[in-house]
């Protein structure tokens, strides 16, 4: 278990600085948590619209940064990727861990799901090992109440040794308390005494001398107990980090201590894997113990309703038909609903074009300028807006509604077996569905797939499903060529045609995935673990805002940015 030097940790550290976080004047607060805990809702509720998203340097992981004020202090909140653990198995976990460990935020908020606290405590305990400055946010407290799950927050706070705040971020409940505790912890007004998981005798005996010799070397930059644990686990990243921080003589000394520790560990554990197992198990069992002491289930059948819904939505008989029906319904609403507003928009925008024309003539604008600007740029942009805006404004909220309800993971569950046969990842079903909304969003979503090979397949094949922006063309074509001959049921036939086209797109996706995974992207399917979160009451208001602002307007602006110069080029080509 000697120390090997090969890393670029200083470079990595620099990257984090470049992310623009460490040079802000505010107090830096990291937001960690499992996926599906409403972490982004907490983030949005804390920061409001004062936020922006960006990519972690060199990583395909997006992170959001926002700010808020409390007690006259400015806080910069970093939304870390949602992870189950901090033992780095995926890019997300690596990003989250490195940030907490190396960027040293003044406070780390761990968002947990009140309805599934035990599993979430696993991450909390791991964060407590790295840093003292932690606030635990028990979110979705309303859902827990509805399911008659009682959580003793005071007891939990006592056991964890850090502040615990119950919140319902969607309704802004408990957020002031959360801000107050963030303020208290980050300013040092509240001293925490975080609970540290104790491991078995052998491990404790082995890490003690390592910890002691690391203490003077790390000088509190990284928690020495945590670093010692990572060293005996054989965590290369931490080994490299420690290695870089040490002079040759110190390295030799540390290596001697590590060899000693190895001898102790050998008496019980055959290899580093077994040590890792023991550490992971100890944390899981501790989480179980804390959960047992603090959570009371008044109704042990609290998941019954979810189960009953799943019985129908994922059943052998109805699962697939309901899914197809739902998707068709969305397409039908989009197609039939978009017609009229599209027409109105077109009328309105072309009325403006007429006005512009009159204006141009009365000012004697040269013919070529008028043509290029009004007939070229304006007309194309007007068409793009009137064709794209209405379907998107209908489709995105509906799609976000399904997302918010928790239906999309069920789609992945239903369809996984096809993707498995195509040697692709089940979560590709999700990214594919996102692709229907927007291929760009679908491709960005591919980051939820851990294996690089499968992620690449999902990314490449995302284009085969027609995104919402392409629907208008599909609808127009199917109305003209197929539905046109059925005067009475035009919309209905158009819907069927589009649905068939979509089924065909899905089949193409699967076939190409399979071909790719058998030729240039050969490999075995990686692990598939898909969480099916409880169904949640969707928040209509937030859905509208999020889908209209984040998706519709965002995509429309990009479309216009492409359409405007394209319109100019087309006009030039046809008129010169």
């Amino acid at each position, binding site marked *: 278990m000697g120390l090997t030097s090969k890393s670029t940790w200083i470079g990595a550290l620099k990257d984090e600085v470049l992310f623009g976080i460490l040079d802000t004047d505010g107090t830096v607060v990291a937001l960690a948590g499992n996926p599906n805990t409403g972490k982004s809702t907490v983030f949005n509720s804390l920061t409001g619209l004062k936020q922006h998203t960006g990519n972690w340097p060199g990583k395909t992981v997006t992170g959001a940064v926002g700010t808020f004020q409390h007690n006259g202090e400015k806080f910069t909140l970093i939304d870390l990727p949602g992870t189950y653990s901090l033992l780095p198995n995926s890019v997300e976990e690596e990003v989250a861990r490195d940030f907490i460990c190396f960027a040293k935020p003044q406070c780390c908020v761990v968002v947990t799901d009140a309805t*599934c606290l035990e599993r979430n405590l696993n991450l909390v305990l791991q964060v407590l090992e790295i840093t003292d400055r932690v606030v635990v946010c028990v979110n979705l407290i309303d859902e827990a109440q509805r399911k008659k799950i009682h959580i003793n927050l005071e007891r939990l706070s006592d056991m964890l040794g850090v502040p615990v705040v119950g919140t319902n971020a969607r309704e802004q409940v408990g957020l002031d308390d959360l801000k107050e505790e963030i303020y208290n912890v980050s300013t040092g007004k509240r001293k925490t005494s975080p609970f540290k998981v104790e491991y078995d005798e052998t491990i404790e005996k082995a890490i003690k001398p390592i910890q002691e010799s690391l203490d003077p070397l790390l000088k509190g930059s990284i928690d020495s107990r945590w670093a010692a644990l990572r060293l005996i686990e054989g965590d290369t990243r931490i080994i490299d980090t420690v290695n870089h921080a040490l002079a040759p003589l110190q390295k030799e000394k540390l290596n001697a201590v590590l060899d000693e520790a190895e001898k102790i560990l050998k008496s019980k554990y055959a290899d580093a894997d077994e040590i890792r197992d023991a550490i992971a*198990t100890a944390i*899981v069992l501790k989480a179980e113990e804390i959960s047992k002491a603090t959570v009371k289930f008044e109704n042990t059948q609290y998941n019954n309703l979810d189960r009953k819904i799943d019985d129908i939505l994922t*059943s*052998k008989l109805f699962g697939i038909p309901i899914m197809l029906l739902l998707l068709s319904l969305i397409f039908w609403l989009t197609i039939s609903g978009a017609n009229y507003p599209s027409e109105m928009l077109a009328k309105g925008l072309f009325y403006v074009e007429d006005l512009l024309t009159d204006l141009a003539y009365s000012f004697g604008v040269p013919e070529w300028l008028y043509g290029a600007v009004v007939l070229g740029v304006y007309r194309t942009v007007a068409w793009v807006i009137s064709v794209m805006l209405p379907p998107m404004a209908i489709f995105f909220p509906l799609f976000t509604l399904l997302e918010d309800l928790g239906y999309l993971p069920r789609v992945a569950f239903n369809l996984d077996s096809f993707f498995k046969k195509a040697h692709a990842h089940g979560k590709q079903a999700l990214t594919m569905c996102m692709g229907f909304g927007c291929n760009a969003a679908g491709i960005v979503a591919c980051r939820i797939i851990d294996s690089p090979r499968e992620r690449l397949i999902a990314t490449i094949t995302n284009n085969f499903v027609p995104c919402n922006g392409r629907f208008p063309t599909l609808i127009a074509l199917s109305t003209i060529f197929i539905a046109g001959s059925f005067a009475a049921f035009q919309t209905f036939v158009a819907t069927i045609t589009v649905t068939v086209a979509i089924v065909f797109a899905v089949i193409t996706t699967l076939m190409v995935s399979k071909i790719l995974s058998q030729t240039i992207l050969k490999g075995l399917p990686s692990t598939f673990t898909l969480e099916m979160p409880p169904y949640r009451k969707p928040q209509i208001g937030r859905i509208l805002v999020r889908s209209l602002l984040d998706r519709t307007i965002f995509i429309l602006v990009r479309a216009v940015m492409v359409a405007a110069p394209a319109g100019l080029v087309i006009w030039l080509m046809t008129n010169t």
Partner: protein
Amino acid sequence: MEKTISLHDLPIGKLGKVKSLTAKGGIRRRLMDLGLVENTMVEALRKSPFGDPIAYQIRGAVIALRSEEASKILVKPC
């Protein structure tokens, strides 16, 4: 020696107690992160429409596992 079966073979609606994981490396870590350590109770909830994956109740969460992963988890039915 206790009689164990793979989690994949656990009948739907039945409970099983995790005895060991035969998975290695990353898969093993992933499974342990989900809380699948020794003596954890797992309930087989439902099969997906085509039989695979199967959804399990694990420590309060519903997690779907493919047969490849589930067969690497040995449980004692109870």
